[in-house]
């Protein structure tokens, strides 16, 4: 399973793609079970150059029945900095935030690594 993420151009906010628009909460991110659909969304996102910077797909894992980013780095992006739990998206709380905070199993952010390799 994968999701599409980027940083919003105007303020740098971490955003996720869902059905043709960008949302701030990972909980609302569109999940792509199908590689082709994810890559099509990524290709479209790359044309939105005045909205987002460097969109890329991230891998997800099942964490307590909720999909969470596989890589530790992407979980930090989806939550906010671990040194300030009242900053970033984690401040809002909720089941998905809890699941992400408790998720285990870290791996490199494959989408990010691909992005770096392309440079």
């Amino acid at each position, binding site marked *: 399973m994968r999701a599409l993420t980027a940083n919003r151009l*105007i*303020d740098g906010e971490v955003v996720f793609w869902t059905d043709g628009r960008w949302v701030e909460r990972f909980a609302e991110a569109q999940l792509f079970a199908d590689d082709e659909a994810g890559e099509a969304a990524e290709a479209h996102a790359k044309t939105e*150059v005045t909205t987002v910077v460097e969109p890329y797909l991230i891998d997800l894992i099942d964490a307590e029945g909720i999909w969470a980013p596989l*890589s530790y780095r992407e979980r930090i992006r989806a939550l906010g900095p671990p*040194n300030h739990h009242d900053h970033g998206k984690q401040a809002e709380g909720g089941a998905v935030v809890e699941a992400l905070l408790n998720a285990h199993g870290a*791996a490199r952010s494959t989408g990010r690594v691909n992005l770096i390799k392309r440079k």
Partner: protein
Amino acid sequence: MYQYDAIDKDFLADRSAEFRGQVARRLAGELSEDQFKPLRLMNGLYLQLHAYMLRIAIPYGSLNPTQMRKLAEISRTYDKGYGHFTTRTNLQFHWIKLKDAPDILDALASVDMHAIQTSGNCIRNVTADPYAGATAEELDDPRVWAEAIRQWSTVHPEFSWLPRKFKIAVTASVKDRTAARVHDIGLAIRRGRDGALGFEVMVGGGLGRTPYVGSTIREFLPAKRLVSYLEAILRVYNRLGRRDNSNKARIKILVATLGAEEFARQVEAEWEKAGDASDLPDTELARIRAAFAPTRFETLTARSEAFEAAKATSPALARFARNNLKPHKQPGYGIVEVSLKAIGATPGDANAEQMEVVADLAERYGQGDIRVTHEQNLVLPHVKLDDVAAVHAALAAAELATPNMGLVSDIIACPGLDYCALANARAIPIAQHIAERFADPDRAEAVGELKIKISGCINACGHHHIGHIGILGVDKKGEEFYQLTLGGSGAEDAAVGQMLGPALPANRVAEAVDQLVEVYLRERQGEERFLDTFRRTGVSPFKEAVYADAH
């Protein structure tokens, strides 16, 4: 403190207006991200994990109270009420919005500040001794030369597109508080046999992927020839430094490849060819020097009875004085170190209220002078001993009086994976765990000087190579692991640390530091510091203690 003139102020206003236009063009789609990125980086604006990060230059770590208050105001208005002081004595805000950046640059310009040359392959902010103008050890005020270098290097057309970034440090004391030997150029002020002022010039130091301690290429450079000699070094580097591989583009690689002797020969040849045309005239040097005229001190006795009486009744003040109060050149004064390393806090972070407390104290008790150290603390360089108790009380109320300067909990840590887009692992929680483990101030004092430095990736912003104990975060099959090195130093006895053994998981690091400290306490002889004991015993006893379970 150096004061900007009308030309400086106009330049900053123009630069800010230019960036406002560039941001507008980016948001309108007239500039692509590839076109815009180098422009924003030239103004210190990075895109990190959660938001944009703005790195603000604090030239040679020197601030006045008005500037500090403006930083506090910016943090409240545009960030989340705090900032992070870095190992380059700059300040980073981690929650900046692109749309606000031009307004922030205007706010900075209103107090003669900016973010120019805090990124990019140019000459970055110059580091100078944070005790400049206050310590009796110095041969001359290093800020004079740091300011001369700042003026010469700012938007210098020949040196704005170097093979890679370039960092210069200036120290004037035997005790080096600038890590000069691990800068691209380290300048140590010396006196010649005839009493004339000059510099020992060290080149090719650096950390990152390939750490080197710099080599001395000139034992004594007459001070007034500084700029032409720097130009000769930069020209040789600009011509021969690699541009095909950013990992091999720093001057340290060139110096190591050519050999220090051959590099020096080429610099001397270049220097001779160029002559002294670019050296600063005496009148200009005198103008800069006047900005750092010695502060007016009162004539006081060396011993303050009020301070001695206060210490006698307050163990907390006595401990603060032992660890955070340093000798001043003027009788009756002291240098006060303000700790940004409260136990469990993020190293180098200060919130807006803390910034304002320091600004107020500098104004009331410290001759309006504030310094930032490369060890991520602040300094009030000129405090009367009579006032130290009052300063301590105000700092303590703001959680800025942790009596741990140079001790085990005075840890350098980069922002790491909590914020940084380049990091492989977190640095902040490792620092917090270690500090909490050594929270007992008696134990910390018993251990004595111990410099722990943590980086979240090989770029080494946390200076891990030169920690007495260095800690490098690595990504091991996707897990955060930490590689320990021992025996490094960024001071006058500079050295790159030696690897201890296989990387440790996050939950083993604080325990391992504890084990290393216990070995030191067992092995130390006389007044040895951790570093001295390590240098005498070698790595074996330390390695045995940490990896005992593995055998």
